[in-house]
């Protein structure tokens, strides 16, 4: 009985880590509520100059453009924002550019060289990890319950 209690406690700790702390780390580049996100890019080749997350009012979310630069607001694409800033935080902003034909922000690291799939990279981690952890907790709990009631 004591072993079951210890195992149960261990499961609770693992579950807390998997569903609480780990996603919090993974979500550090999550778009923030009320923020405005935009990129400034070069009109000649679509290369990104800067990516900005700007807080709510009264902040002004306005870049000062140099000749040959344009701005693209991406607030309405939260998955793209998350992946862009995740790359930027790993010194990989250069992996991104604006496709001048389609006017879409794309990652050159993407296999399809198109808009990033919603289920990839960090999004996959943040979705799959808690799901797998929850599944594991449920299976272990079921196993312990069956043993305890044999």
């Amino acid at each position, binding site marked *: 009985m004591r072993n079951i209690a210890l195992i149960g406690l261990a499961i609770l700790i693992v579950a807390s880590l998997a569903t609480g702390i780990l996603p919090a780390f993974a979500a550090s580049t999550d778009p923030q509520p009320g923020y405005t996100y935009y990129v400034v890019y070069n009109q000649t080749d679509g*290369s990104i100059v*800067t990516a900005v997350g700007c*807080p709510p009012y009264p*902040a*002004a979310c*306005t870049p000062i453009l140099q000749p040959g630069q344009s701005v693209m607001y991406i607030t309405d694409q939260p998955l793209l924002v998350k992946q862009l800033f995740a790359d930027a935080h790993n010194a990989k902003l250069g992996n991104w550019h604006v496709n001048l034909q389609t006017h879409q922000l794309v990652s050159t690291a993407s296999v399809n060289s198109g808009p990033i799939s919603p289920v990839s990279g960090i999004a996959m981690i943040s979705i799959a990890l808690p799901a797998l952890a929850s599944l594991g907790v449920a299976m272990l709990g079921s196993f312990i319950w069956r043993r305890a009631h044999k």
Partner: protein
Amino acid sequence: MTIYSNHQTWNICVASQSTSTNYLYSNAGPSSTTLWVVQVSIGLNGGDNTQYANWGFIIDPNDHASYFGAAIEWETNGGEIYGSTLSTSLDTSMYLILGINNQDSRSQCYNVLVTAMYY
């Protein structure tokens, strides 16, 4: 005293060999004579942290107050914060501009924190 903004935070990532220039505040506050006090700070927020960067916070119009700084081998991610308090009297509304120049061969992200108040 009126708190115009309280600890607002920007996340600004700048490509290698590039400059990011943005209005942090635009047409802010009263258009009559006003004393502004603006606290600004900048720190690293991921990217290549072993590099050189320089920046300038400017209260416009006409560069009434400014804070220019630079960091070399800015290695500790988020560990070192640089800042200043700008104060100036304006007879128009306030514009706060930030320019960040990343001279490194890799991109870099910065946290920018601003609190603004006027009297």
